[in-house]
């Protein structure tokens, strides 16, 4: 008598605690092995790009906060760079240094979230996630000092930031830098050498650097495969050309490499912040309202500005028809584009690794669906 087996199709999500938001996958299993994946998204679609068409350039900053809600400062920075390019605004130096500090802090916070949730997906229930979230809380406190909000900051304005940092910010920042460095050491101490993490993440979801480049995947995922592509170095925006930092590369291109690149990037961000603190000079934080009015009215044309976000290349494309609001706004969302190879990553792996691989992409549903 022969035993007949059939593939089973399972619907995962959209309301599933491990899908980092509302993401739906139709997965076909043969036993425990994944043989087919069909991602379905759009459950968090809020029409941000369409909403932007009836708001002025200053008001859209608040919309960009809500796209990738764990790295809102980086979203603000990308959008503001696009507006500055469109309107030919020369930003104030102090404002630029301040927004570089803010965005690097946000990158650390975002990588803490990515690391914590990767471990949560690995089955380390609670504790490592809470450790990571505790360190992120320091950074959110700094943001509250800067702009009065913790998550939806809207701190940046065309030409700089809306207000200078308060006096209490600088000592708190230098204290937090030490604390964060210590906590990264601690995370590395108990995670990077852990056998369980080694055996679960090494050698899973290996992608070749060719396929990654062909799918235009950017960010820590690409750097984990050995391709040296960092927009801060390749196409320096703001004052990144005046700053030296090490590009973190790994050659394995598996889940462990992606995790390792993120942890090492946090250290580099700390170095960038301390260089920014050295370079910052007193002065106005934004141009006067005579140069940059609150209601900017750019010439007809278009502009594209991209930054190295926490997830990859985050770009904003703006088309102006000469009015007070953009004719069209398009966002190059790294979370969405990094999902392109999800099928290649998952097919052939086991069910237990599904959410680990999914988490290693470090996606944010607010940005995927926009």
């Amino acid at each position, binding site marked *: 008598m022969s035993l007949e087996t059939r593939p089973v199709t399972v619907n995962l999500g959209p309301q599933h605690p491990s899908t980092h938001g509302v993401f739906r996958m139709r997965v076909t299993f043969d036993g425990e092995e994944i043989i087919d994946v069909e991602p379905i998204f759009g459950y968090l679609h809020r029409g941000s790009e369409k909403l932007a068409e009836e708001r002025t350039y200053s008001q859209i900053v608040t919309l960009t906060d809500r796209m990738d809600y764990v790295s809102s400062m980086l979203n603000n920075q990308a959008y503001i760079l696009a507006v500055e390019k469109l309107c030919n605004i020369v930003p104030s130096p102090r404002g630029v240094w301040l927004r570089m500090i803010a965005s690097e802090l946000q990158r650390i916070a975002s990588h803490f979230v990515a690391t914590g949730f990767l471990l949560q997906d690995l089955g380390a229930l609670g504790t490592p996630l809470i450790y990571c979230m505790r360190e992120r809380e320091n950074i959110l406190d700094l943001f509250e000092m800067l702009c*009065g909000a913790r998550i939806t900051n809207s701190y940046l304005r065309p030409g700089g930031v809306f207000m200078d940092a308060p006096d209490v910010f600088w000592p708190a920042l230098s204290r937090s830098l030490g604390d964060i460095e210590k906590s990264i050491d601690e995370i590395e101490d108990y995670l990077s*050498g852990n056998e369980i993490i080694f055996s679960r993440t090494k050698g899973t979801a290996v992608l070749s650097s060719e396929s990654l480049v062909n799918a235009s995947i950017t960010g820590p995922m690409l750097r984990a495969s050995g391709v040296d592509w960092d927009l801060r170095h390749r196409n320096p925006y703001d004052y990144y050309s005046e700053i030296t930092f090490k590009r973190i590369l790994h050659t394995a291109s598996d889940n462990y490499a992606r995790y390792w690149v993120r942890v090492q990037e946090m250290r580099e961000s700390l170095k960038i912040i301390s260089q920014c603190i050295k370079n910052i000079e007193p002065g106005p934080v934004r141009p006067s309202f005579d140069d940059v009015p609150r209601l900017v009215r750019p010439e007809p044309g278009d502009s594209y500005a991209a930054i190295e976000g926490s997830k990859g290349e985050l770009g904003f494309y703006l088309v102006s028809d000469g009015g007070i609001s953009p004719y069209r706004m398009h966002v190059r969302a790294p979370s969405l584009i990094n999902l392109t190879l999800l099928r290649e990553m998952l097919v052939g792996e086991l069910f237990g690794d599904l959410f680990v691989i999914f988490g290693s992409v470090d996606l944010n549903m607010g940005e995927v669906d926009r």
Partner: protein
Amino acid sequence: MIGKGIPRGFIITLKNFFRTPVTVQYPDRKVSIFEYAKIKKKNIFKLFFSQPMLSLKISLGLISVPSSVEQSQRFRGNEFTFFEERCTACASCAKYCPLGIIEIVSVPGGFDAQEGESYKLDVFDIDIGRCMFCGLCVEACPYDALHMGTKFEKSTYVRDNLIITKEELAKSEKSPSSFYRPQFEKEKFDPFKDNIKDHYKAGRHEKPEYKDLKKKWVDDR
């Protein structure tokens, strides 16, 4: 070596065991009898002998005191602070609001204003049920009439109560945050301790001179 990770993990756990907790108890927290006496400014022995039942309850952890969360001075809370006498009903805030939730109705006023024609405010409603506290209205206000508040505990059972009117704003306690108000930070105004009456003048930008206004709006055009 296999098995090395387990003792290493326990060392981390042990380290965290002796750390001070980061959790903030809110809105109430349990106190020890020493702390309770300190808060109430009483001698601990006096407290123990005068109110033995209370002391016993405190020791058992049945009594809690209200506790607050540490906030920054720029905190964007959900209770706005509004000074009607400064408002010229220019409706900059309503125009600048990304969601259009500020409703302003103005009538021609008789009193003398700083510049141009003068208007009297009739209706000033903010629908904070839809507000996202971005603070753009506060940034737009040219005469510092509207400030973000530092309080965040305004909650109601009915959605209609979330529309705050001019009268409610006039009545509510004024604790403006220093969001987009650098003059507050210059004066070292602390919204959690100080009274706004002592710093009333700090809430206003400098009054523009007539000749500057004429140059800006008449001669340069």
